[in-house]
């Protein structure tokens, strides 16, 4: 039988990328997102200790990352107010998603579009598409109804579709 540590490491290897992607929505950088994942796992470890010590269900971890992210966001907002002169620059390589194929123009456009979705829509898309959660699980994580979760997902796909069409038309027009 696997030790708890082995089970958790295996679980981390399977789910780390999707947790990181979700955490990106609550962080300024990849590094901050990884810290957020680590904090959530620490909280989950103590939480699961009373339930046999095994790895947790994904919806609960998403929810915990969101909670930790909210806390960080609040303290970050306060810090930013104090340090208004600081300029935040995006690292060129610091992307949320990697295209599976090289030179996949559509995928790269959608990657930007996903990052630019509103927080509400992006959370649902990430949890549904890359997290593999059902609308019911998403609704429990975000404390919304399953219908609202499904509506947000459909609306997000419409926005992504619209953005893809717009960018492609612009590029063809300028070519």
């Amino acid at each position, binding site marked *: 039988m696997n030790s708890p540590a082995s089970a958790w490491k295996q679980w981390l290897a399977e789910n780390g*990328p999707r947790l990181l992607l979700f955490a990106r929505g609550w962080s300024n950088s990849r590094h901050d997102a*990884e810290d957020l994942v680590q904090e959530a796992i620490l909280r989950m*470890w103590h939480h699961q200790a009373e339930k046999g010590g095994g790895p947790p269900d994904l919806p609960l971890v998403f929810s915990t990352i969101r909670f930790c992210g909210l806390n960080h966001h609040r303290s970050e907002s306060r810090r930013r107010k104090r340090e208004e002169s600081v300029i935040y620059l995006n690292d060129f390589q610091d992307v949320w998603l990697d295209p*599976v*194929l090289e030179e996949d123009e559509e995928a790269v456009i959608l990657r930007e579009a996903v990052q630019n979705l509103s927080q509400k829509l992006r959370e649902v898309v990430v949890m549904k*598409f890359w997290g593999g959660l059902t609308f019911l699980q998403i609704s429990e994580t975000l404390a919304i109804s399953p219908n609202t979760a499904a509506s947000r997902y459909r609306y997000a796909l419409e926005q992504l*579709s619209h953005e893809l069409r717009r960018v492609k038309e612009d590029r063809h027009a300028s070519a």
Partner: protein
Amino acid sequence: MQAPDPIETILARLMPPALSQDAQFEIEAMIDELAGPEAENVVGISAGRWLARVVIGGGIAAAVGAMFAISPVFKGSREQQVAVASPVLSNSGLVLVSESDRIESMTDEGWQENPDGSAMRALRLNAVEENNVRDEETGMEVLISEAREEILLMPISAF
């Protein structure tokens, strides 16, 4: 089955990147630290170490027995059993040669709430009391073994 939206088909060509090696290492180190020593590093007591078991078991029994003696909160009174047994022994011509009371197993039952709202930790004990008695007339010795289950409630003073 519903056909995927064309956008979903493109989204499927995007994958979330893995955690960086540093982050993966840090989290795994944290898990190791939280988990403590691996189970395989813990040395089990082999069958040949029965003496150690007896000594350790006796120590536990003695400790729990001492708790029985000083704690008013356990269910199932041992004193009552002794009080009933002794007159029978004295009237039947039987002499108590030796007695023992050992704990066979102990299970942590978690927390329980008292009627006054205070928290108690419950331990379920399987104990065996053995009395070796001798019949004065015939000289025969008889071993009387009585298994019982008790719940020990201990006040929780620290969280």
